[in-house]
Every structure is written in structure tokens, then in C-alpha cells.
């Protein structure tokens, strides 16, 4: 059996490792545009901050691929997939396959505005980006986008001693993860760290002669020498589209619950697909490391003959700002738009949490100040536990004694 994997990210590598669990022998070929071995995108902010050396962000060496018996075709762009004849073309060669796993990932969005190509514009996607940023010697930085990457990048550069500002188009920081109240807590934490936070401002252009000098928003001009774009990412679906595979409404490759594309023998996983949300059951883009790995596991299992269904994605994002842990799990009010949401919240000096429930089912959780009980809540959200079921267990001595993992969540119910 011959399996081709396009992409060398979390999904591609996890798929390869997972296939090895089923079959130590089958042939695995991995194609990637870049010449890197696998790295951890999530560790990049830590490297940018200087907490860990850049080389620690690499998860594998080329020897590791060999040891796992994965043939690598790195630095080679796949030009075309011929799904009808089960083969792909790369570098003037054709490669036939029994199964194809597309894990092409995503790329950061840089809006087509004036000045976005000037020297001093950066993204944070690969270890190389860190080197480029550090070579540029940033002093005054504006981070565009206050998503989790934006916030982490801002914190990392602040740690390097830079003067950092964040510009966010929406009305509060991390708008896809937190609601206003919890976001405000995070905002004040950022501000305590001397990071300027400007929300509800749209970037109009980047100004400068040779290099970035200023960033103009619809409200003000921000003097800076560096702009880091963290305004979201976009699935890489061009190859799939060209091959005739269906692309979904959100711009990701459409897959069924077995991670199969719209053509037999072709699977896709990771940032490039759109998958169902575990809570709403609606299509969504889950651009998370854990989702990519889970999807890759299933794609691998299913291409090895299992029929394992994907349960759906569920977001969980943890940040530590000024030493304070912040966590958002599942959906926030914006994500639950259209549903009647029950909110359970509590606020104190050091702690704020809110639990969102829809139709009795726990759907979202945000907490600033502590991670206690978060894992129980995360488990319940993924599992689809209802508030009443959680209470039933917590109120029954016999049940709770064998289901100790509920105990940490007691305070929420």
C-alpha cells in the first residue's frame, strides 16, 4: 500500500505516525513545499520571546523521518493532483497512490493595503519568521489582530523589551474566544504589561519610505518600525480546488465525518479542511494544533480501513498573561449567535469565570485567573454533557465517588 501525504505540518506528520501504528510496512511519501522538518507553530511565540531557543521549536530531525520510514520529498511543490488516475505530479515526476492525505495547512492573511509589502512587515508562521523579525531588530511594534497569536506575539516582543501596541478591528480582544467582560480582564492584564490595546480600529495603510515607519488606522496614526500581521489565517486549498475536490462555504476543503474528501481515496485533515463544530454541528474552521492531530489520526485510521467518525472540533486556548492563566473553551456568545444562551458567571478580585449553556448543554467556558476544573469542563463540552447530568452526578455520592473527574467542576454547578 502506498500513501502520499501533502504537507509537513502537525496534521501531515501525525497522519504518518498514526499510519505507522497500523502498518509498520506500508509505503509513506511526504511532500512539502518548504525544506523544514516538522516544527511546532505553537512554540513560536515562546521562541520569539526568547524563553526557548529557536531550534527547540523543531520537533523532528530529518533522521526521524527515516527512522519512521517516511520518504520525504521536501522543497518540492506538488503541481497537480490527478484524482481520477490516483496520482500526483511534483517536479516532473508522477507518483501513484492508494490513499492520498491532503494536509496543506493554512497561511496568514496580509490584507492587500498600501505598504503591506514594505520592509518591516512580518507574520509569525515559521521559525524562519522569528529569525527575520530578530534580524530586523524591532523597537516599536504594532501587532495587527488581537487573536491568540496576536496577543502571544505582543507578549513575546514585550518580553524582548519592545514597545508594543495591538490593533484589533473588533470591539474587544480575542473576539472569537472571549466575551466582552472576560476580554476586558485580559485587556487590563495586557495594559498592565504596558502593551497598548486599541480595539474597534481598522488598519488603512502602512506608511514608510524604505521601511515601515507608521501604521494608519481609521482613528489614528501609530509610529512604529515593525508591523506583525496576526489578523487570521486562510486554508491552503488551491491544490485541492484545482484537482476538483469540493471546497466548503468557509473556504476549507470539504470532508465528511470520516475525513474523506469528495473523491474516494482522498482524505484531508488539519488547517486546510472545514470540519463540524462539536457543539453546534455546523461547519467551522478549527485552526488548532490539537484538532489537526486528531483529524490526522482519524484520516490515517480510515485510510487504513477503519471507519472512525470524527466527533467534531472544539476549541481550547490557554494563555498566560502577566503570570495569570486565561482559558477559553468551546464557543463564546458570538459563536453561539442565534441560540438562547444561559450564562453562569462569577467575579472576584483574582478570578472571573463564565459558563455558557445552550439547551441545558454546556457549550462554552471562559476563565481568567485559574485553570482549576477547566479540564473537567473541557471534557464535558466535548462530550456534550448537560448541566442537569453534571448536577445529577455531583449530587449523588455513589456516582461521584467513581467519577472523580467531575469533582473539580463542582463550583460551577
Amino acid at each position: 500500500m502506498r500513501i502520499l501525504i501533502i504537507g509537513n505540518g502537525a496534521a501531515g506528520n501525525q497522519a504518518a505516525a498514526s499510519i505507522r501504528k497500523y502498518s509498520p510496512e506500508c509505503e509513506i511519501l511526504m511532500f512539502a513545499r518548504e525544506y523544514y522538518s516538522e516544527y511546532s507553530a505553537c512554540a513560536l511565540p515562546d521562541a520569539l520571546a526568547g524563553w526557548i531557543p529557536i531550534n527547540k521549536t523543531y520537533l523532528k530531525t530529518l533522521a526521524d523521518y527515516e527512522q519512521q520510514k517516511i520518504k520525504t520529498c521536501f522543497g518540492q511543490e506538488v503541481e497537480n493532483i490527478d484524482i481520477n488516475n490516483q496520482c500526483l505530479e511534483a517536479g516532473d515526476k508522477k507518483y501513484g497512490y492508494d490513499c492520498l492525505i491532503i494536509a496543506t495547512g493554512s497561511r496568514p492573511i496580509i490584507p492587500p493595503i498600501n505598504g503591506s509589502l514594505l520592509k518591516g512587515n512580518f507574520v509569525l508562521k515559521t521559525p524562519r519568521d522569528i529569525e527575520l523579525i530578530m534580524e530586523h531588530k524591532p523597537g516599536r511594534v504594532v501587532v495587527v489582530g488581537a487573536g491568540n497569536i496576536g496577543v502571544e506575539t505582543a507578549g513575546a516582543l514585550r518580553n524582548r523589551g519592545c514597545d508594543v501596541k495591538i490593533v484589533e478591528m473588533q470591539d474587544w480582544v480575542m473576539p472569537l474566544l472571549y466575551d466582552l467582560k472576560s476580554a476586558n480582564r485580559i485587556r487590563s492584564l495586557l495594559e498592565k504589561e504596558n502593551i497598548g490595546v486599541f480595539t474597534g480600529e481598522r488598519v488603512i495603510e502602512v506608511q514608510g519610505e524604505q521601511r515601515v515607519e507608521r501604521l494608519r488606522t481609521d482613528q489614528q496614526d501609530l509610529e512604529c518600525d515593525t508591523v506583525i500581521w496576526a489578523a487570521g489565517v486562510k486554508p491552503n486549498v488551491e491544490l485541492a480546488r484545482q484537482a476538483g475536490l469540493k471546497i466548503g462555504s468557509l473556504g476549507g476543503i470539504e470532508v465528511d465525518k470520516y475525513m474523506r474528501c469528495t473523491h474516494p481515496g482522498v482524505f484531508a485533515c488539519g488547517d486546510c479542511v472545514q470540519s463540524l463544530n462539536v457543539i453546534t454541528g455546523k461547519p467551522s474552521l478549527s485552526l488548532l494544533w490539537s484538532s489537526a492531530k486528531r483529524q490526522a489520526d482519524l484520516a490515517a485510521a480510515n485510510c487504513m480501513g477503519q471507519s472512525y467518525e470524527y466527533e467534531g472540533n472544539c476549541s481550547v486556548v490557554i494563555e498566560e498573561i502577566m503570570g495569570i492563566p486565561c482559558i477559553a473553551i468551546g464557543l463564546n456568545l458570538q459563536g453561539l449567535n442565534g441560540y438562547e444562551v444561559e450564562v453562569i458567571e462569577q467575579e472576584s478580585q483574582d478570578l472571573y469565570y463564565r459558563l455558557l449553556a445552550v439547551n441545558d448543554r454546556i457549550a462554552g467556558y471562559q476563565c481568567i485567573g485559574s485553570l482549576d476544573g477547566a479540564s473537567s469542563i473541557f471534557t464535558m463540552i466535548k462530550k456534550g454533557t448537560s448541566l442537569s447530568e453534571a448536577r445529577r452526578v455531583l449530587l449523588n455520592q455513589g456516582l461521584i465517588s467513581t467519577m472523580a473527574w467531575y469533582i473539580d467542576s463542582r463550583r460551577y454547578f
Partner: protein
Amino acid sequence: MKRIAVNIEICDGCGVCQLVCSAQKAGQWHPSFSRIIIKRDEEFGLNVPIFCMHCSNPPCETFCVMNLIYKDHDSDLTLRHEDRCIGCRACEIACPFSAAIMDPISEAVVNCDLCGGDPQCVKYCPAGALAFIDISEAADKKRRQTAGLQILEASRKL
């Protein structure tokens, strides 16, 4: 395959296991350094020691952004390359039992490794609530000593 089993009826929550574990693993006598955690439910006066279940398909492995959690082929334990940990704590949240804990000294997240086959918490548990036994044996015992026995006793009364 041997694992730690808890008899919840017996555990009185004294925390000796935590002290022993922290001393063994972190060189400090402090419950918060322990890889075994006692969850206390005050409502019912329950004390439930929790530790890594060494799941076969561990969610922490999926969540680890550094791919440093692995299943050891021989022992079937869930182990870590602790030196590579960046302390993001994703595994802590992924673990339903929150059995992964942040070691405050190395700043790496760690889990129980059964002390290489001789778990010290079991050795020093004063109440005898912890046992290190074969998992299939534990299941057999339970079948015999709870379910089956109840039926047997009911039938005796007939």
C-alpha cells in the same frame, strides 16, 4: 499489566501519598509537587486520589504542541520527554482527570510514571487504600466481590 487502584471507601485523604510522591519526584515535601492528587469533595466527605490513568489513546498526546508525550511500547505507560516541555499546559486541560501537573521547579508538565514499576505512594499509603495490581485482576475482583456477591447473598435469602 499492573496499575494503581484505589479503594475509595478506605482513603481518608491523609495526603501521605502526595508527600511521598513529591519527595520522590521533586525532592520537596509538598502536596502541590505531587503527581498523585487527592480530589476532595467536601459535600460528601469524599477523598479520591487521582493520577495518570495511562490511557491507551491519551488525549494529552494529541494536545501536546511539542509532540513530547508518547506511549512506551513495552510498559504501555504514557511518558514524556520532559526536557522538551515548554509549559503550555495544554495537556493539563486535555486530561479529563487533570492528572498532568506543572512541576514548579523544572516548569515542565509531568505525570505519574509509576516510579518505574514500584509506586512509592502505594508503598507508603497508611490506610492501604492504594494497591498496585493487575488491571484484569482488579476487574475480576470487583465482579466477584460486588456484583456477584450481592446476587449470591440475595439468593441465599430466598
